[in-house]
């Protein structure tokens, strides 16, 4: 795109040449802006050598002509003015007239922010409570009938969140136990009490690590998949379709996921416990030259009757929190793909946070109960 400028007695003669397209709008604007309009009384535009002019090119020309007219000069065209200019005039005429002046937005003060935060927090808490309540009521209503509990659906979720998660949970449990055992072995060997490595590993894995690690891994895995699945169903109006069919989405979507996960997580925890103890055995054998039989004996000695149960009892609680967080956030998705991503993130973060918070509460509880 190019233009040629000649000064004539009356003012300027501008010849537009070549292609005026969107790709060259910036260049055209720069060229047009550089034209000195001082003492120019008339501008004549020639489009004879113009091979093509698209809307954006015409827009750049129109902006220039506006400036010319604002300076008091007359605009004329050699031949007919391009159609595109008329089209832009017609298009931009209406919105300019109807666009209302936006009211100046008040800058919120700190107090207002705090208030808004509190109100939002309160509403969210109420919503979450409502969700939990509805889940409980649906459970109470469905628990009497096997058909309404949907065992096939539950089985599917046990498979997807439990069985397919076995390799990764086992691997993590193994590695983390090895790390713990290695660290404690380094510290305790200097004191000559290597045997306590076994106690540390056993109690650590059974009481805390087994269930906590499994919960955190599966929170990342399953809370996100629940939230994403329900969220895209929500976007696709599938949840509305269920409701319109007279099927309670809580009964067919939320409950099987929660129940499936409540079944799967304790089983995963048992596997994690077993693999963790195996990891401890492997490390003790290789690093401390401890015979496997001695390790097993020591494990048996260090376990109190409650040790295993203190760990495993937490699993269903964590499971229901993770599954509920995923479903709750998933069903909140509205309107956009960005919202889906946001809610999935929130679901995972909340699930992990809730698990750790509950674990802390359990620790306090067990301490009070002296077990």
């Amino acid at each position, binding site marked *: 795109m190019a233009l040629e400028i000649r000064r004539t007695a009356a003012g300027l003669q501008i010849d537009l040449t070549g292609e005026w*397209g*969107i*790709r060259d*709008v*910036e260049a055209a*604007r720069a060229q047009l802006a550089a034209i000195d309009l001082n003492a120019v009384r008339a501008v004549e535009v020639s489009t004879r050598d113009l091979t093509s002019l*698209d*809307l*954006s090119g015409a*827009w750049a020309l129109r902006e220039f002509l506006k400036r010319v007219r604002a300076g008091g000069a007359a605009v004329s065209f050699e031949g007919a003015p391009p*159609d*595109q200019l008329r*089209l*832009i005039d017609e*298009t*931009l005429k*209406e*919105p300019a007239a*109807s*666009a209302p002046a936006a009211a100046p937005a008040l800058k919120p003060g700190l107090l207002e922010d705090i208030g808004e935060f509190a109100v939002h927090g309160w509403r969210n808490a109420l919503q979450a409570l409502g969700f939990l309540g509805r889940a409980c009521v649906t459970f109470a209503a469905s628990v009497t009938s096997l058909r309404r509990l949907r065992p096939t659906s539950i089985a599917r979720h046990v498979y997807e969140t439990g069985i397919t998660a076995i390799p990764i949970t086992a691997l993590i449990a193994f590695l983390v136990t090895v790390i713990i055992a290695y660290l404690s072995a380094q510290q305790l060997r200097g004191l000559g009490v290597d045997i306590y490595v076994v106690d540390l590993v056993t109690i650590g894995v059974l009481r805390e690590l087994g269930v906590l690690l499994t919960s955190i891994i599966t929170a990342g895995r399953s809370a996100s998949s629940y939230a994403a699945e329900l969220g895209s169903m929500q976007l696709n109006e599938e949840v509305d379709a269920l409701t319109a069919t007279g099927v309670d989405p809580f009964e067919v979507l939320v409950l099987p996921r929660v129940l499936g996960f409540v079944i799967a997580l304790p089983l995963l925890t048992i596997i994690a416990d077993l693999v963790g103890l195996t990891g401890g055995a492997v490390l003790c054998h290789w690093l401390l030259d401890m015979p496997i039989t001695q390790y097993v004996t020591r494990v048996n000695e260090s376990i109190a009757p409650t040790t295993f149960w203190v760990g495993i009892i937490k699993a269903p609680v964590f499971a229901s929190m993770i599954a509920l967080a995923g479903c709750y956030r998933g069903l909140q998705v*509205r*309107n*956009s*793909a*960005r*919202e889906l991503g946001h809610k999935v993130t929130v679901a995972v973060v909340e699930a992990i946070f809730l698990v750790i918070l509950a674990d802390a509460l359990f620790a306090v509880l067990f301490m009070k109960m002296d077990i």
Partner: protein
Amino acid sequence: MRNPVIEVQGLVNRFGSQVVHDGLDMQVMQHEVFGIVGGSGTGKSVLLRSILGLQRPQAGSVRIEGHDITRASEAQLRPIKARYGVAFQSGALYSGLTVLQNVQLPMLEYLDLEAAVLDELARLKIGLVGLNADAAEKYPAELSGGMVKRAAIARALALDPGLLFLDEPTSGLDPVSAAAFDELMLFLQKELKLTVIMITHDLDSIFRTCNRVGVIVDRHMESDTVERIVDHPNPWIREYFHGERARGARIAAGLPDGAGHGA
């Protein structure tokens, strides 16, 4: 002047053992409105995807303004893709962006514009498709079906393309909105000198807007002017244009209603 803008030759598309297209030919001339018609499952969308370079055909060539896109790399396709705009069936507006941002996205990707220019040009496109200034700030979820279709066209026109693809532009619209949409399309086609290729089932829309129609039958395409295609010997095409639903549309378009003559 009369070079085809789009030339499809011997297109073959196969999915496993299912042959969708077997030597399909299609030509679209400059400044015409070309309608693609076919029964469900005859591969209208597959054809469109092949032309848009979203899918590589097993054989055959697709030329857009002379460039064979079936043999082009992604990098070679990029400038070609800037020359056409596509409005997808359900709009496919980016749900996390406002209408204005949706229209600006192609401009941002391809051009280096000042923010004010970007804004003005995008608003120009939005005004052009008949959306008001308020709609520009809305998110796709807040728009009605007709507005989504218009916004999709505004986005398709973002880079001032010469070629516009429309996938079922009037589907899901009420008859009044659909008629208004036809008029909008004719207006844009005339004012911006566009070449328009549209997939459609809307007979009113075909008779009102199309110059030529290509019908996909038996994995090939039969194309002709609207006046002539209605009397094509193929039974499916006859049924399509002479069925009960077609009569009203033909009468409305001022064509013979086909009841008195024919075979």
